[in-house]
């Protein structure tokens, strides 16, 4: 990660460009996949894996792309702009765990069932505890289970588990899984440190995705303000709406500064407390700002923004799902304070 600034920017640009392949100009594909069985398209997921995105954070000598968090958040930001439903972030989390255990990064969607309660960012690994909010589980080829054992946080692979599925506002789903270790394959003795880091990286990647979500919903809102006319003029000429738009832009600008700063800190080799602090800061900001921007986008569109058929509503519903994924703003505010040394 010691490349020059220019080299780094070029690498990020390449990632952004490649993302264009799965981010088309309209949201037809996104709409068609809503509320379907898998909630995403396996072929598109495979294409993303083939581009090396699943293993983007896996070191090159472990079969990955060995890229930095700066590239990862640039990628998820691009995906967020397109509301891409393929579960890259949970898939990449699993790839990182598998790589840490010495296994080849997968090509298909492998989901890790780490969460035991709502609004958590730790994997207790309680052997018998139900695993909740497992994202897009019906489309997963394999399930990884962290399990607390004497050796540490062991990692298992289980092929099938009973599912209890709940649909989400964005058209995807989450599942509750009950661990069944009978016949499960034991992959590693202790992935505790890798798990912690992977969860932080997933939280930051989610912040990046939310940045894309708010950028795009804001861009659509600006277009609407420029073209929609009321009382004989474009509504974007009304000063109260202009100032509101500027306030939203400030939130987007701050979110970008926060997310990209966090990525840079991680890429520069942060200590665990530093990593936690900057990730929590970025995720807290992205969660709050994405809700503000997407719900304001609906308000600024007026009545049409409240219809399901108009695309701007897709963004608020995506933010409703992801703002709290990998920890709510509340959780991250507290973690930030707990991890931060006193301010200078």
């Amino acid at each position: 990660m010691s490349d020059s600034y220019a080299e780094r920017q070029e690498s990020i640009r390449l990632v952004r460009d490649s993302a264009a392949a799965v981010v088309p100009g309209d949201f037809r594909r996104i709409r068609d996949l809503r509320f379907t069985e898998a909630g995403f398209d396996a072929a598109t997921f495979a294409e993303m894996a083939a581009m090396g995105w699943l293993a983007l954070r896996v070191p090159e000598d472990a079969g990955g792309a060995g890229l930095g968090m700066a590239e990862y958040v640039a990628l998820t930001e691009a995906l967020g702009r397109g509301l891409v439903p393929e579960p890259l972030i949970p898939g990449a989390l699993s790839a990182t765990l598998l790589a840490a255990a010495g296994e080849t990064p997968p090509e298909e969607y492998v989901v890790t069932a780490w969460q035991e309660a709502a609004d958590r960012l730790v994997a207790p690994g309680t052997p018998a505890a139900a695993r909740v909010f497992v994202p897009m589980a019906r489309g997963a080829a394999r399930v990884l289970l962290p399990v607390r054992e004497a050796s540490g946080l062991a990692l298992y692979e289980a092929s099938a588990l009973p599912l209890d599925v709940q649909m989400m506002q964005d058209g995807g789903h989450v599942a509750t899984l009950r661990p069944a270790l009978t016949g499960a394959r034991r992959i590693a003795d202790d992935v505790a440190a890798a798990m912690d880091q992977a969860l932080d990286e997933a939280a930051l990647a989610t912040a990046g995705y939310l940045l894309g979500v708010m950028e795009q919903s804001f861009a659509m809102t600006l277009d609407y303000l420029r073209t929609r006319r009321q009382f004989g003029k474009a509504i974007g000429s009304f000063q109260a709406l202009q100032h509101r738009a500027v306030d939203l832009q400030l939130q987007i600008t701050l979110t970008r500064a926060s997310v990209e700063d966090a990525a840079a800190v991680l890429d520069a080799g942060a200590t665990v407390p530093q990593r936690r602090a900057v990730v929590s800061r970025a995720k807290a900001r992205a969660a709050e700002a994405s809700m503000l921007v997407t719900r304001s986008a609906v308000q600024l569109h007026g009545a049409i923004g409240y219809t399901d058929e108009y695309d701007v509503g897709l963004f608020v519903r995506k933010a409703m799902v992801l703002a709290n994924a990998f920890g709510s703003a509340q959780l991250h505010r507290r973690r930030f304070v707990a991890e931060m040394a006193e301010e200078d």
Partner: protein
Amino acid sequence: MTLDELDALDDAAFRLHVREWVEANTPEDLRFPRRRLHWHENRPWYLALSRQGWLAPAWPRDYGGMGLGAARQLIMIEEFERHGCPRVSDMGVLMLGPLLLKHGSEEQKRRFLPRILSGEDIWAQGYSEPDAGSDLAALRLEAVLDGDDWVLNGQKTWITFANDANWIFVLARTDKAAKKQEGISFLLMPTATPGITIRPILNLDQHDEFCEVFFDNVRVPKDMLVGEVNKGWTYAKALLGFERIAIGSPRLSANALAAMKRLAESMGRADDPAFLEMHARFRLELADLKALYERCAAALKRGETLGAEPSMLKLVATELFQRITDAMLELAGDHAGLLDPMPGAALHPAGQFLIARPSTIFGGSSEILRNVLARGLLELPA
């Protein structure tokens, strides 16, 4: 109890009488509905009110109403709200009835009012258009006189439950040469009239509450015009203020805040000091909203006319409702994104969040209300 007997009660006894009847007669499964109910859903409650003679508290007794003053109407509304009575398909009772009573011909009154009271006719209100929402006077639905018929061409949108209604009243442009607010007339027609197409619009809450209505050479007989031609805007505008007092009720915020507390309990955060601080702030805001609402209600009960208060009340009430539901989403953690209510709890933060959205858009958007208050109440220059 007859209307005369009701009149003889003092306010407290009247309230008690209403309360007892509402408790006994509101269907349990319709109370505190999460969404506005379709006609096929609210029909039992509509018909119960109809049978009791309580459907139209504000209409004169000659036309089947209760003929109550503002104070008693408010007592009824308060008791309905307290028991979570659902809103019925009330465009006929609330909007068309008062308008016909004021501007309709005697024949129109005798023909339409009884069928509203009986539930035979369910009305939809056709005002908004794709380019005439907040700027309603910009409407373009065209009505041209052809022999004894008005011929309508154009489109309406955001028509609440047009898919439930068998009749619709519309504002249509009958004089294109006139100034914006002039040249608009008020017309009535069955939704089954040839040339009318109704298309439901799914909203963000996945509910088909709104419809688009298309008019393609729709012929409406001349006697379906209410009042004078080109005066429709004036008639309609005088009634538009009505919705604002109802939407200024603290009930929605109170329900949301109660739900927030249950949510905090289910998340194990009910004793969290940060939650308690936030909850305390909302409780204070809710209490002040209630004070403002009751102040307006008391003025109405004294027979005073309200000026800017309903608009201020709507701003305060709807924006508080939104802020409470915004905060609920953060509190809900991973539950915030659930499409359906949370398993095992009668809680649905996402649903309440989405339902809070249109309250600042419809019935006078927050932006328009602020413009109007700045000019009218604060006398700031244009």
